[in-house]
């Protein structure tokens, strides 16, 4: 069935973007019908004002199906791909285009924007609700009864803001309603009209925990749009700095989780290693956090010093021992915050969290273990960097798609250039799928564990909200 749906998409009109085809309304509906039984994970869904685009993975290739959207809307994908729910609501928030058969209640728009919908050419002024949109508990929260507790958006921590309504009829959470949009900065509107170099500076600041992956995915999309190959040095820098970023972000998660579980030794060790990584980054490219490093400076060194790597490897071995010691982190986090492989597939969650779910039940222990393993892998990659070669461009007609593996999962960027400037842009961040899946992941958890579960997932509201 997957091959049939892929063939159906490819029968659409080809575009200047490699792998993107425009379907007519009938073909779009047929595609939705075919998706019921097809193994084509949805990687993203977005609009550009004229068309709606759905990005799928078919084997090792990316396939984009587009459909022109009349004002009354386009047939929703959410009935066959649950992960399309939030993107459909976001498209409605930003463009006013409804998904027929999907939900229309806001995902990002809290009723405080002065215009609506903000991305259309002539948005209507809105009075703006001084109190914001009233927070109405969903049926699940209402049915749960008992106590309703809030989590976020200001908990005094160091993460991007979002809010959860948690229904606790007893000791365990039964219903969860996420409220997003607090971290929304209107990036799609900001990028429009910018020269690619200016846009790249904004892209680097989408999410500091995955800045290299965002820069890399954007750079690949840009190379594909312009039909220029990515030089070998840029590819090598992407591999190396991507590994540094993965180590840093995973260490940050491990330090936070250890502190929350009262494991001071692991917390101090992870934080000390993190600081070493940040200082190494500063020595390598003048930045502790890896902003504006892709494309790299001409003088960029392509390897990390052996002594620094040896110190990190020793720290990693100790962290691993501490993690698995009796009554250590692994034992304490077992059984909490389960995101099973089936749930991950259902919600379109990929990357580190999906790999963790292949290790065991997919609980916090598996996720932290997966992060520890990836730190080890990344240290190996830094010790023996693979031979980098030029990455050839696909397409070149002014529109391009690119991706990179971030610490929390794959990150996608798509852009269209007009007269050398960004005319339209979209970014797919793994945190959006995580935010959507929170109600099932948190179901049955204790309130005290919410923070820990969220941290272990690496959910970043700034990546989800854009």
């Amino acid at each position, binding site marked *: 069935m997957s091959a049939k749906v892929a063939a159906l998409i490819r029968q659409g009109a080809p575009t200047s973007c490699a792998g993107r085809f425009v379907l007519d309304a009938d073909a779009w509906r047929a595609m939705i019908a075919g998706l019921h039984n097809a193994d084509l994970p949805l990687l993203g869904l977005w609009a550009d004002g004229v068309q709606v685009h759905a990005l799928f993975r078919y084997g090792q290739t990316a396939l984009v199906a587009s459909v022109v959207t009349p004002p009354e809307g386009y047939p929703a994908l959410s009935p066959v791909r649950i992960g399309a729910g939030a993107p459909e609501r976001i498209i409605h928030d930003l463009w006013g285009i409804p998904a027929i058969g999907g939900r229309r209640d806001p995902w990002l728009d809290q009723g405080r924007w002065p215009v609506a919908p903000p991305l259309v050419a002539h948005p209507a002024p809105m009075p703006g609700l001084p109190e914001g949109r009233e927070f109405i508990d969903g049926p699940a929260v209402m049915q749960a009864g008992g106590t309703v507790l809030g989590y976020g958006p*200001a908990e005094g921590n160091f993460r991007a803001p979002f809010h959860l309504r948690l229904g606790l009829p007893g000791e365990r959470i039964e219903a969860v309603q996420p409220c997003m949009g607090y971290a929304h900065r209107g990036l799609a509107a900001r990028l429009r009209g910018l020269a690619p170099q200016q846009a790249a500076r904004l892209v680097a600041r989408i999410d500091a925990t995955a800045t290299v992956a965002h820069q890399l995915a954007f750079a690949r999309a840009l190379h594909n749009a312009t039909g220029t190959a990515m030089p070998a040095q840029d590819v090598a820098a992407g591999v190396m700095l991507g590994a540094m970023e993965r180590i840093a972000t995973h260490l940050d998660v491990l330090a936070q989780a250890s502190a929350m579980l009262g494991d001071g030794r692991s*917390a101090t060790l992870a934080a000390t290693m993190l*600081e070493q990584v940040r200082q190494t980054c500063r020595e390598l490219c003048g930045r502790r956090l890896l902003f504006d490093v892709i494309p790299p400076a001409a003088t960029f060194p392509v390897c990390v010093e052996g002594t620094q790597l040896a110190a990190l490897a020793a720290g990693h071995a100790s962290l691993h021992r501490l993690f698995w010691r009796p009554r250590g982190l692994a034992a304490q986090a077992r059984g909490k915050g389960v995101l099973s492989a089936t749930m991950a597939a259902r919600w379109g969650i990929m990357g580190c969290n999906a790999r963790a779910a292949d290790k065991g039940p997919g609980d916090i222990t598996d996720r932290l273990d997966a992060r520890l393993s990836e730190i080890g892998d990344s240290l190996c990659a830094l010790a023996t960097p693979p031979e980098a070669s030029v990455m050839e461009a696909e397409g070149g007609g002014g529109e391009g798609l690119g991706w990179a593996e971030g610490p929390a999962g794959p990150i996608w960027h798509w852009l269209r250039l007009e007269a050398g400037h960004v005319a339209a842009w979209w970014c797919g961040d793994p945190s959006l799928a995580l935010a959507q899946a929170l109600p099932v992941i948190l179901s049955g958890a204790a309130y005290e564990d919410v923070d820990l579960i969220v941290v272990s997932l690496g959910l970043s509201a700034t990546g989800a909200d854009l």
Partner: protein
Amino acid sequence: MAQLHLFGPEGTPLPRLEALDIFHIESGGCTGCALELASLSRALLAGSHPIRFVPTPRQAGMLLLTGSLTAGMAPVVELAWQAMPGPRVLAVIGDCAVDGGLFGGNYAVLGGVGERARTSMALPGCPPAPDEILAALVRWQASVRGTSG
């Protein structure tokens, strides 16, 4: 002299710090400034220093903002400020919070709080490093001592 153990193998000597409870809000940036604050917070905690980041505004003397102020976070920041007891000060860290930085005003963002409210401490940078943030806090504490003493 206290040592800030996480900053380099030798540690960084620190001047005397006064007790201060800080409530931090990430109000709409990339969390880069917040990550650097987190590093500072861990270092202060490891060294048992009297500057603490607290989980509620009700026990804080300083409200510290990072990131541009989004439309969604404006009322949250206001509520936190109202919830702070007694003498309180406002601090902004990083370009976004100081003047909007790369995320100036648009339909979703009001801009940098540093441009809209009187702040006691404003430190630009994208992001400023933990030792720079600490130095700014120390300078601010010294200036307060200077004016009150």
